[in-house]
């Protein structure tokens, strides 16, 4: 039996069958059945696999479960609390901020982490924070609109 690791995902401990050098992404998707984080490149270049690691948005495609340790992980699914969508998810739906939606996981995760830290980020800060998240369909304009909307939903209008 390989060393069994326990990781904390969406508020619950999970015993992991995979070896410690397994990238977190495959454990989340295949062992925990979570379909939020997506495999986009496996190279930490595109952001489709992002999760909230502690308080930061991080790519999960190269981070191993040994790296994860006891740091809590939140996935797209874990943003939902008591059946209530996270305001960022609400805002993305209201703005229809996707075409194919494959990259959206990373967009929502990166936005949730950003808005937890900066309640009313400037347009420039938003764009720079999302530069590591690639979208091929060209939904950027809607995504930016949704980030502004989420900021208002979470923290009210800019003072």
């Amino acid at each position, binding site marked *: 039996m390989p060393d069994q690791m326990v990781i904390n995902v969406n508020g619950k401990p999970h015993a992991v069958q*995979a070896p410690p050098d397994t990238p977190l992404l495959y454990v989340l998707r295949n062992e925990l059945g979570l379909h939020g984080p997506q495999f986009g490149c*496996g190279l930490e270049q595109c952001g489709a696999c992002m999760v909230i690691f502690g308080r930061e948005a991080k790519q999960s495609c190269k981070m191993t479960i040994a790296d994860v340790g006891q740091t809590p992980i939140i996935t797209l*699914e874990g943003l939902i609390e008591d059946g209530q969508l996270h305001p960022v998810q609400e805002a993305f739906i209201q703005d229809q901020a996707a075409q194919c939606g494959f990259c959206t996981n990373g967009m929502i995760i990166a936005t949730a982490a950003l808005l937890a830290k900066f309640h009313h980020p400037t347009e420039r800060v938003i764009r720079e924070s999302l530069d590591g998240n690639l979208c091929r369909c060209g939904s950027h304009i809607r995504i930016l609109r949704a980030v502004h909307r989420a900021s208002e939903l979470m923290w009210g209008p800019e003072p």
Partner: protein
Amino acid sequence: MSDYSGQSTQDNAPQSASSGRRESFWGELTDELDDWLRIELDGTITAFSGKVELGTGTRTALSQIVAEELDVPFERVHLVMGDTNLTPDEGYTAGSMTVNSSGDALRQAAAEARRVLLKLASDRLDTDSSDLVIHEGVISVIRDPERTASYAELMGGKQFACKVTYTAPLKPPELYRVVGTSVPRIDIPAKFTGQQSFIQDLEVPGMLHARLVRPPSSTARLVSLDGNSIKDVPGVVKLVQRGNYIGIITEREEQAILASQQLKVQWSESPSMPPMADLFTYLRAQPTDDHVLIDDGDVEKLIASSPKQISAEYHQPYHAHASIGPSCAVADVTKDHATIWSSTPGPHPLRGALAQLIGIPIEKVHLIHIEGAGSYGQNGSDDAAADACLLSKEVGRPVRVQWSRQDEFVWEPKAPAMVMQIRAGLDADGNITAWDYHVWSPSHVARARFPGQLIAAQLIAGQPAPVGRFSFGAERNAPTNYTLPRQRVTVHYLTHTPLHASSMRSLGGAENTFANESFMDELASAAGVDPLEYRLRYLDDPRAIDVLHAAAEKASWHAYPALRVKQGEVFEGQGLAFARYENEEALVACIAQVQVDPSTGIVSVKRIVVAHDCGLIINPDGLENQIEGNVIQSLSRALKEEVQFDEFRIKSVDWDTYPILKFSEVPQVDVVLINRPTEPALGAGEPSTVTTAAAVANAIFDASGIRLRQVPFTPERVKAALQERFPESRS
């Protein structure tokens, strides 16, 4: 009332019938009503489309069309798409044809069903159908509203058992309540909450995982393979090697990745690629099959005798579809049956190719479409399905194949490189005397209908991709929509392509429009005329004139002379482009406002305005979403994208070596929608892709006086062009 009295059905019938059947080239359209629609006992409507959702919102738009024509609430329509056991064969989801072809077929089917239901109700309620009214799937007598019959009661779970005649009365657009509104996308909430949405998310009981070990290039040959090199990798079920084809099947996904990285394999490569630096000279020198699309005669003579002659050559490099999710497929192949889950845009045609590939009769092969990441044409999805089939057959268990990022970049068919050359004569007033257009391109279509067109079969047999059975796509938008006094348009189809190439969004439409609309700008400049005014001289279609005016007004177009203002250290300019997609589909006018920084060569696009007329608008917000996406993706292609290769292999293998536009580079995009409720609904998945590159090139010229005739407009090219144009100035 319910039969739309006063509406002429005859006016609609011929046009709709022809547009509904135009795709028959690609599919085998059925006119059995039951193949399109079913009224369920609970009152829901099941509709069937052979098209698939490619992330463009067509599932929502088609459902709107059915709900509208049948007078049922939108939520009651359940649309089944792209399942070879359930849906009609509508060929490929391509060419911005889903809303106009499948939409038209479903609209006609729904209208036919409505007519049948009205007849049934008239019999049951013992009244004339003109005394009936339909509300939310319930038919009632106008003067006695207590007498009703619902669709479900009338059908009682039975089939229609009749034909779609294309003669049923269609609802007049002024009565629309669902079509024309921004119904939110059906698929979006699941995608934003992590519910299973994509082919990548599918898990079939007993499923194994696989990764491929592709050769470094398509002509490489396997020299040696050391199976022992993965013997310490746990979970390996089978290492498959046939010819140059290698796949590894494991219990868990990360095991397949590890094994594919650890496998010791040696390849021999030969220099089979053309020199990238001389690509366009090379393309011009290849054998071609020439098609003269238009020849008004005397073009050469008229150009030669004109006081002014202008010529230019434009270059388009290879582009990648670059789907954000690499291709994936699942197959369960047994001795005599196969089920395949794939994000293919052509479930029915691919089914035939796969059936032959695995040697199972086509009627025993069931292909189910499940969405993948956006594909924008032919990406790796068909080939991944072939991989899943072959590997599943090897182990007799369901296998999920996930391509790596590098697999996708190297092995997806590329959008072809092209050369466009135009010459024109101008008279003393700057008017065009004659126009001579030439384009060199391979076919833009190499979709898999036969096993030999699939990469897996090519690697097994050691054969290259076969030459396409027909040439298609390079003629798209080669002719302009301008009324020119004399013109000749010639397509020189290359009979082979050095890099495997197939359909990408708009096929040759974007490249031809880049050339045509850059050249119109060059002519306007030579004539000393405002580029907008110059185009209007050659347009007589009021819809074309309208989109140009709408864009100009929204963008506050500054009439010639050129803007060419220097703001601090950067130049600012505006550029215009116009096209009617495929010469008869949606009309687009695009204006780009750019800044050019001469010290860095960086082109910053600040704003793009698009005016868009695709006839009747089904879903305004969905349409705007498509247009924004077209603009940003085509801007990325124009500013940044070029597939890199050396004499042996493709060097663009990831997002560092094939960068695309990022958030900090995205401009403001303003869309002006022109709705024409009495005109047919035209597709919008591609038209606004075609105008961006020319609008930006024209804006760069307006800003800085340099003319860029090769995509992409990289800082290096801008700096080199500035240096050439203004050799004395130091930047």
